[in-house]
């Protein structure tokens, strides 16, 4: 294996969609045994480039080379047959099927007369799952797995073929730290086998930890490639967005108002137990913990999606029963949900209609929806959140992942809630917009909103919160103020040191 020959080379690729020049002459190559990062803002064209490579889109111009040969990827199966494995940003699993069936979909091992060889299937799958160190087995139904575990199934698929190049499109967006470690092990195994790896992520710390080179896209144009060892976060950010960012911890404090939301002894079956906390107007409270700590479930209870089995919820000092999301919205609660595709958006609807959906009853011009007012709302949040789309008529499903997330955030900010709950608000959002959103959350608090931020990203919680609630397996372990919190004591708290366990 000579170092000089790339496994894969993309030459001058062009791809346009109606109204969007998603890729404008991008060239890019991957060496064997290299982890090559692809970075760029939301909508820069990363996923599109990879879909061209994976045979999902046909390029309007340019060529793909593998070794010395020019190849045409007529479809995903052909790309796979050529050794290109694609792990998508958006999950693409069959929920009703088992883990094993999903992993070997289309290539199930057969016995005579075409019967599926279940024993072999289970055995092979379990071997792969063991390598990935996950807590489920081949026969589990995929629909019963958490998003993170579904992601692991998606990754397991990559290990079944003789891959020449593996594309990871934001694989860690919904993984916990422990799961990430496993993923990085897998990547380094692949690497040592001489596989070329393309790694897309908005998380700088990962990029600098595992990649060898970084290529950068901006508005569909290739900006250049740098060796990871020769650069730093600031330089990469500069190349991506043309400016640098302030990534410091939250030190600003503003006047706190009355208690807007108080929760006393709230429990919901086994999901969480005896939870008490309060959020004041003007305050951002971060909820940090591992996946499964019960944070999302608390948010869902406050939003009327679950019935608590015990305890009280008080809004502005008054005890309330929140029966449904409609009820929660009427009481001034907004929830930016964790799963944008499943819970946040109607993908077939346009951007404007998605954004105004919760308030469509209130935007009236006579018997009709006031479309002018809707467009005004959309324009306002498009500018504020820097949403990249050719216009409000674009279907949300055609937006890049990060821009979809911004639509969900805009949708709930435009409700002007008293209590704003955001669950993993910056999943899949680029560094520039992320810091914008953090700034926005601080600003909203300053205007008197009570804000709850649920996040699995420690820098995010540290950056936005006035106080941090650390949760472990359905219980609040400790509450920190932003002065007393450190990375160490936070990690201790969320790994349940009380019971003597460490993660």
């Amino acid at each position: 294996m000579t170092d000089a020959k790339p496994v894969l080379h993309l030459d001058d690729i062009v791809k346009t969609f109606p109204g969007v020049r998603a890729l404008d002459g991008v060239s890019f190559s991957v060496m064997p045994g290299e982890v090559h990062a692809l970075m760029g803002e939301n909508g820069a064209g990363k996923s599109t480039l990879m879909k061209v490579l994976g045979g999902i889109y046909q390029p309007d111009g340019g060529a793909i080379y593998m070794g010395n040969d020019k190849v045409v990827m007529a479809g995903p199966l052909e790309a796979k047959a050529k050794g290109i494995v694609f792990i998508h940003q958006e999950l693409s699993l069959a929920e009703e099927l088992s883990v094993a069936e999903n992993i070997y979909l289309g290539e199930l091992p057969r016995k005579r007369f075409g019967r599926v060889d279940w024993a072999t299937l289970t055995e092979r799958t379990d071997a792969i799952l063991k390598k990935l160190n996950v807590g489920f087995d081949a026969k589990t139904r995929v629909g019963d797995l958490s998003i993170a575990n579904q992601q692991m199934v998606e990754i397991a698929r990559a290990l079944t073929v003789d891959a020449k190049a593996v594309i990871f499109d934001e694989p860690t967006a919904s993984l916990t730290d422990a799961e990430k470690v496993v993923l990085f092990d897998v990547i380094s195994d692949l690497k040592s086998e001489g596989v070329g790896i393309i790694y897309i992520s908005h998380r700088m710390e990962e990029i600098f930890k595992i990649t060898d080179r970084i290529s950068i896209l901006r508005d569909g144009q290739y900006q250049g490639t740098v060796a990871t060892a020769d650069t730093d976060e600031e330089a990469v950010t500069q190349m991506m967005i043309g400016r640098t960012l302030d990534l410091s911890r939250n030190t600003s404090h503003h006047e706190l108002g009355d208690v807007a939301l108080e929760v006393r002894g709230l429990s919901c079956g086994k999901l969480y137990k005896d939870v008490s906390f309060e959020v004041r107007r003007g305050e951002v409270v971060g909820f940090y913990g591992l996946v499964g700590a019960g944070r999302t479930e608390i948010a869902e209870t406050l939003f009327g999606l679950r019935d608590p089995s015990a305890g009280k919820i008080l809004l502005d000092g008054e005890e309330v029963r929140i029966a449904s999301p409609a009820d929660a919205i009427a009481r001034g609660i907004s929830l930016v949900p964790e799963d944008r595709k499943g819970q946040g958006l109607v993908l077939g609807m346009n951007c404007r209609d998605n954004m105004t959906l919760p308030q469509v009853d209130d935007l009236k011009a006579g018997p009709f929806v006031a479309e002018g007012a809707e467009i005004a709302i959309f324009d306002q949040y498009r500018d504020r959140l820097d949403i990249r789309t050719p216009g409000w008529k674009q279907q949300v499903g055609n937006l890049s992942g990060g821009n979809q997330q911004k639509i969900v955030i805009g949708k709930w900010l435009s409700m002007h809630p008293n209590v704003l709950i955001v669950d993993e608000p910056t999943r899949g959002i680029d560094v520039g917009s992320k810091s914008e959103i953090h700034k926005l959350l601080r600003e909203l608090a300053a205007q008197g909103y009570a804000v709850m931020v649920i996040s699995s990203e420690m820098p995010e919680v540290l950056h936005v919160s006035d106080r941090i609630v650390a949760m472990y397996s359905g219980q609040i372990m400790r509450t920190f103020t932003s002065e007393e919190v450190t990375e160490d004591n936070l990690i201790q708290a969320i790994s349940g040191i009380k019971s003597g366990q460490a993660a």
Partner: protein
Amino acid sequence: MATLTKQQIGSVLAKQGILIAFAVFIVAFTVANPKFLSVDNVFSVVRSSAILGVMALGVTFVVISGNLDLSVGSMMSFSTIVVLDLHDQIGPLLAIPAMFAMTMCLGAFIGFLVGYLRLNSLIVTLGMLSAIHGLTLTYSGGQNMDIADKEGTWFSVFGQGTALGIPVPIVIFAGLAALLGIVLAKTAFGRKVYAVGGNGTAATFSGIKRARTVFTCYVISAACVATAGLIQASRSLGSQNTVGQGLELEVLAAVILGGASLLGGAGTIFKTVIGVLILGFIQNGLLLMGLQFYVQFVVTWVIIILAVWLDIAAKRGKLWSPIA
């Protein structure tokens, strides 16, 4: 560059495929029989499509909300029989609202089962298809229903009258299409119907009361069925118990032909009207060619398959893409 144009042509073909096929078809039939595009024939096609069309308008709401309604055919028989019977008992002025109320109660019942009890709409409306048929037979005692004094009633105006030279059924169909088109495209309720059908979970998370939305769709569908029953009864002033039999599939064909997705979330009233007209013209064209009316059953099925295929081809961007 060559691939680009080929792709573009492919995508235009796939997207407008139904309209193009329709145009080719019209030209072919007009060449074969010049009467086909005569004013008289066009009017007669639209008028005979009106009953089907009115029903399709309501079913469009149900389909966009992500559900099915297979009960509309037998519900239409019910409305027709009931209004004819009540006509002689309490007079047309009371018979019409009474029939509307009864039919809409059936719709509300279906809406309750599907929306509030969360039963599968296919099962519920398939069951209602036969249950309502039984109800109709019970009501009529198995007899055909006839108005005693066919000459002396103004009731015939809905099916046989004209307004400004246009047959009343066409006026009703066009008026209702305009009204429901606006409801679906311009009101908050319409928006919710799309959201509920497009992604029910996201609709819930947006505070939309899904059960109520689905319920309302079925009530609207029933009101349309009642209107269709009114036109039917008024046109013939007498009827069999089975007049609407089989219409549910034709209605569904028209709605799908118009491009509403059976998965919910997509479709418009305008497109459904186009679907109704296409179906009407095709059936009429076959009759003019001298084919027996029962050929229509086969043709309707072929059209559904073609429509669904073109719909899928448009989404995938190619006509031939077998399960890999």
